[in-house]
């Protein structure tokens, strides 16, 4: 049983990170029907900015807690600006273009950002500074760390905050109205451009937070790390029903659990033929199965009401 519990814990942690990233995909899709494939790269840049800022401050002798906070704030601010710029430069001019055009642009932006990061930070793996104390706990034969607990708690709190923003504030109301009918929302005085920009900025802030979590958890970062993370989070968003916030959260956690349990048991199931490094196949098996049998996802509504 201990491997089961262990993998549940690992899955929850990984799943919380997927969920935060998936929210960025789903918010943008819900409002403008675009899959922003560059979102994974925004997360990657969040991680790398934290390495640079927190690393530099640590070297200058700043206490770990302050350097970590500064690194996180810098990542969030840079990613928000990046998300805003992506929308403004790459997607807004294509607002009325056929849907394939912005999709290809998104892939293009993803490549541009990866190469930009490679030029700025180099092509080698980088070590993420230790920002949180390493404390281990044991529960019923499973081990977990303070970092894991913090990741799950911070994700949960952030997602709660996002739900409050979307369901309790004027901006959230404007976002939901725009998602349902942009033309009518603008006739009511909602500035569509502002709402779409807000979706990008908020999604990117969540992505930056996820990026810092990934760095803290794995203690390693690389300019290509956003690609696979982005695909997994996109899968999570599709699993939950893309465009649906609660769906992205649940989809992220579920995907994390499926991957962790799959990785934990794949060796036993295949008699040692496949090892736990095959864990990536589970995400994409999930993606294919969802697209085949329930393309609208767990919480997704019937499509067709989009203009």
């Amino acid at each position, binding site marked *: 049983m201990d491997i089961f519990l262990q993998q549940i814990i690992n899955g929850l942690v990984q799943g919380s990170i997927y969920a935060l990233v998936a929210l960025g995909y789903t918010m943008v899709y819900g409002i403008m029907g675009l899959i922003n494939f560059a979102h994974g790269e925004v997360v990657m840049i969040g991680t790398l900015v934290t390495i640079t800022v927190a690393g530099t401050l640590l070297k200058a002798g700043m206490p770990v807690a302050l350097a970590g906070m500064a690194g996180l704030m810098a990542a969030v601010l840079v990613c928000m600006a990046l998300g805003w710029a992506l929308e403004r430069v790459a997607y807004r001019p294509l607002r009325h273009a056929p849907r394939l055009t912005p999709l290809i642009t998104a892939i293009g932006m993803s490549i541009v950002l990866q190469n930009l990061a490679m030029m700025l930070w180099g092509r080698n793996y980088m070590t993420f500074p230790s920002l949180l104390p390493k404390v281990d706990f044991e529960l019923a034969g499973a081990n977990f760390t303070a970092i894991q607990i913090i990741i799950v708690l911070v994700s949960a709190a952030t997602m709660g905050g996002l739900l409050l923003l979307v369901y309790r*504030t004027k901006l959230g*109301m404007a976002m939901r109205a725009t998602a349902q009918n942009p033309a009518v929302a603008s*006739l009511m*005085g909602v500035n569509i451009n*502002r709402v779409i*920009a807000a979706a990008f*900025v*908020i999604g990117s802030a969540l992505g930056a937070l996820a990026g810092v979590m990934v760095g803290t958890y794995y203690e390693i970062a690389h300019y290509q790390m956003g690609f696979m993370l982005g695909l997994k989070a996109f899968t999570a968003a599709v699993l939950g029903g893309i465009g649906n916030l609660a769906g992205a959260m649940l989809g992220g956690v579920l995907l994390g659990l499926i991957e962790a349990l799959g990785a934990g048991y794949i060796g036993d199931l295949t008699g040692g033929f496949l090892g736990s490094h095959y864990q990536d196949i589970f995400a994409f098996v999930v993606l294919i199965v969802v697209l085949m049998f329930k393309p609208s996802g767990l919480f997704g509504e019937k499509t067709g009401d989009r203009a």
Partner: protein
Amino acid sequence: MSEVLLEAKAVAKHFGGVKALRDVSLSIRRGEIYGLIGPNGAGKTTFFNCMTGLYVPDGGGFSFSGTPLVADAPHQAAERGIARTFQNIRLFGNMTALENVMVGRHVRTKAGVLGAMFQNAATRAEEAAIRQRAIDLLHYVRIEDRADDLAKNLSYGDQRRLEIARALATEPQLLCLDEPAAGMNATETAELRELIDGIRRDGTTVLLIEHDVKLVMGLCDRVAVLDYGALVIEDVPAVVQKDQRVIEAYLGA
């Protein structure tokens, strides 16, 4: 008579070879109920769409309370003080009645993205004021007991009322109603008539597109008739009713 609120100057709109609007010029005075009628396909809704910025006219233009109305984006028309309802009801179905009206308050309030994220006192006060004003408007159109129901679950008549409340939430100087009586029974139409009359009494100018000729003639101060995209006549109901061209347009000549 009082000043002109909205003036259309030779507004033209084509769709391919179809001339939906042919140089339509008319003027709506502040404080009146102005009716726009015409047979199906006469261009009434196209005129609305040009005015509210959904379409860009191919010729001519509008001026609103004395200055040109350049509506690049529909939210600018809302800012200037023009609100509308739709012939086919277009509410935000998955939001509550109250939320639908609250969205309409957007144009008159200012807290932005940062305010929403950090929830300072000013933002919270503003959101409380928005909610209160929205509740008042639901009272005004008498559907306050449906405030927390999803818009898509409201009855047809209540949805029409909700659309009017949402439009009023933008504090318009000019309220444009696109066939508000469509599909209503006699009782509902009578109630609607009272509501529109009340809106005008409370100081909002009303532009009414309607098929129900009886409603238009009974309620409007002045009436314009469109036929095949061209203005036939613009005058008080008593004159319009007797005009030979109007009778021909409706009965076929």
